[in-house]
């Protein structure tokens, strides 16, 4: 990446390391634009399939100037054989994510930046959105490393979302989603509608990967005697008297919950990755996600 502006998330060396990776796409079918992704189907012909509106970052060579002359509208031509996938990265921006040491939302932003950059570096279309207050707020799909700074800026923007409304936000995004490609949801899933959300996202033609992000003290809680736990997102309070028995039961319930999500996602061909927020993004990308074949 060549830019005079400093990237908000990573240094140049790390970005160069990232460029060695690319997102895996096990469910890739026909793309609509010539891309650089290796496809499981390697066709030889160059068969025109359709037009679609020009998006920033599209290869200008694919513009149909004749159509522009007739319609005064920039459109690009789509072909059948060559894959052109969109990488979808969804970040849960609810208040429950704005918590923890390290902060879960910050960790999610970094992970989304890294994954988005992988997509840009692979010349895939990248669509990034924040989920919050029942809506998905994203930026226009983009392509190419030159858009990385724009991506990073978008991810670094302060968020004002309070509630997740995860199911509604996911349904909203899934309804607008076209095409195929990896779909990565980064969330703590602490929302009553988490299963509905996963169901909607898995129901698309995209390859769903769930990065289940939890803070270390959500994974290993230590509760003082007689405290009132106040929900960062809803303000709802729960009174507990911390003892070893209660913590043990919490751990058990957490494990059951994670297993339930993993099974749900797995049944729908997706990948589930539990991610503590104190996990370094390099470890996440080069170790955890590579082992889970989310990246290659």
């Amino acid at each position, binding site marked *: 990446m060549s830019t005079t502006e400093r990237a908000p998330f990573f240094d140049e060396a790390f970005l160069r390391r990232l460029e060695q990776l690319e997102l895996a796409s096990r469910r890739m079918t026909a793309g609509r634009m010539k891309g650089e992704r290796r496809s499981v189907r390697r066709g030889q012909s160059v068969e025109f399939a359709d037009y679609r509106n020009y998006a920033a970052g599209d290869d200008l060579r694919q513009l149909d100037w004749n159509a522009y002359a007739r319609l005064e509208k920039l459109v690009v031509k789509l072909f059948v054989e060559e894959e052109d996938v969109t990488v979808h990265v969804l970040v849960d921006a609810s208040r*429950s*994510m*704005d*918590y*923890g*040491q390290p902060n*879960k939302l910050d960790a999610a932003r970094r992970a989304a930046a890294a994954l988005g950059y992988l997509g840009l570096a692979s010349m895939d279309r990248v669509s990034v959105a924040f989920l919050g207050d029942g809506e998905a707020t994203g930026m226009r799909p983009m392509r190419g490393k030159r858009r990385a700074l724009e991506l990073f800026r978008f991810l670094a923007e302060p968020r004002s979302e309070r509630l997740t409304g995860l199911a509604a936000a996911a349904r909203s995004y899934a309804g607008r989603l076209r095409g195929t490609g990896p779909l990565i949801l980064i969330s*703590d899933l*602490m*929302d*009553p509608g988490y299963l509905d959300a996963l169901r909607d996202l898995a129901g698309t033609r995209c390859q769903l990967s769930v990065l289940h992000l939890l*803070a*270390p*003290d*959500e994974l*290993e*809680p*230590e*509760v*003082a*005697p*007689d*405290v*009132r*736990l*106040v*929900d*960062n*997102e*809803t303000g*709802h*309070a*729960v*009174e*507990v008297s*911390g003892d070893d028995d*209660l913590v043990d*039961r*919490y751990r058990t*319930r*957490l494990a059951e*919950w994670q297993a339930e999500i993993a099974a749900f996602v797995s049944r729908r061909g997706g990948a589930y990755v539990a991610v503590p927020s104190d996990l370094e993004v390099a470890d996440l990308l080069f170790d955890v996600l590579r082992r889970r074949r989310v990246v290659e």
Partner: protein
Amino acid sequence: MIAPLALIGLVSLPIIVAFYMLRLRRRDVPVGSTFLWQQLIRDVEANAPWQRLRFSWLLLLQLLIAAIVVLAAARPFNAVDSDLAANVVLIVDTSASMATRTDDEDRMALARERARDVVERLPVGGRVTVVAAADSAEVVVSETDDADAALEAIDGIEATQLPGDLTDAFALASALARRDSDSTVVVVTDAAGDRLPDLGIGAPVLVERVGATDANQAIAALSALRRAGGAQLDLFVAVVNPSAVDATRRLEIYADGSLVDARDLAIPAGQRSEALVSTVPGSARVIEARLAGADALVTDDRAFAIAPPEVTSRALLVGSGSAYLENALALLPRLELYAVDEDGYVDALADAAESGPPYGLLVFDGIVPDSAPTIPALYIDPDADGTFGAVAARITNPVIARVDPEEPILRFVDLSTVHVGRTREVVLSDGMREVVSTSGGNPMIAVGEEGGRRIGLIGFDLGESDLPLQVAFPLLMSNLVDYLLPATDGILPSSLRLGESISVAVDPRIDRIALETIGTAGFPGAGTEALEVPVVGGRATIPGAELVGLREIRARSEIAELDDISLGQTAVNLFSADESDVRPDDPQRIVEMGRVSQSEGPSTQPTRAEWWWPLALVALALLLVEWMLFHRLTRRSIRRAMGPRPQPFGGRPR
């Protein structure tokens, strides 16, 4: 249990349990989401203000403490035998000697403590009457079976400045004992010189004697005499040392608040030292003698005197001439003395009637005039009958009988070392009273009134006694002259003893007289005493003062010029050898007041031995344990809450 109502406090036990079941006000801890916690808690706790009661050592200890405190408040007891009857009259001596206080001894506090012991020893259902006794008796609580009320009353008893006289208290006790045959009289006293009644009472008397020290010296007499001419006052001071060791005390004399004399007096043990002070200016009004330093009793370390007024009367001494008598009379500032022999008596009276002021007093030494004088007269060794009575043969070597210490004629006069060779045998007339008599009852000194005139009598020849050689002689003559010639500008004597009441003649137009006694700062119960008494038929009875200090009398009248005018001032002093002798005495004479045979004494009665205090000790110990346990738990909680890294759940990482 004495106070079973206190068991109502047991309702505190379920209240404590309820507090434990009530949800605590917990510390808020922010978490990202309670999503998982809600699922977890829903299974075990209902969202109610109560929670399941869990075992807690703190709860157990608090319940135990509350139960013990309630039990102690109910004042449990068990029955033990008591030496007291069912009806107890508890007399607490509050006379001046009970104010004895040294570094090691607070006699009144000891007395209160003993009195409390007596109340706590009362048999079951017993009643107690508490009487505070100084010169009279005051019932502070009457026939109560409420031990708390009696103890409270005892706590309020304080020593007075008054001389001790248990006559009233025993009269009261006797009346109470007559009403209930099962009675005991308990006297808490130092037995130091209190007067006792002549008759005993029909109940056994127990004495709780308090006190030990005798380290006290006292001003026993203070008298101011105005020297002829009035320019100078002569002060007579006597200091006694009733203790068992010799003492040297510094005597300070103040005139109207200014120090005018100071000297050291050595007073042998059990003796008395006297001092004549001639440095007091004649203009002084209030004179004070003070023993510097501290001893066991402060009430007798200061004494006051009002300087006598400058009034002189002409006195005619008729006789063959006695140098001692002439000197003694000439020294009296109130008298302007003239002397004649028996033959010149009639002429002298005639001369005075014609050319000079009349005589105010006649003194007959060894003779009796043919005609009774019409002015006050003092007869010494009369050789014939007179208005005083009839005389007969002389009695040889008479023994002076015990004298009344309250007799004003003998104020400051010590006759214990006086010897008389012979005295006249006298039969007093109706208006006369004995002041000093022989052991056989023959009057030796007497005073009285006859035909509206005052008369004095000394029944022996001064030349046949050693009285003129002693300090007592001028004092006796001064007192006799004071009696024969009452002060004309004031109605009060210059000094009174505490508790001494007098009757005074005042202008009949005065309705009432107001008395105000300003006590001496630093004395027990010091303050100001004020009261008014009515004037009846031109006379008023002034009750005895209860405070050492200065007493002023003012008139209250409907007539403006008589209203609020001063009628005089007097000094009030303790001057009680008995009270100043603070050494506790043998209480046997008080015990013997209970004239009842042993068989008639009270049988042993059951009484209550309370054991609330060991319960209170146990409660205190448990409270300490509970406190330590609470802090231990709190420290542990704080340690857990203050982990090395900030933890939103307030815990330390495992």
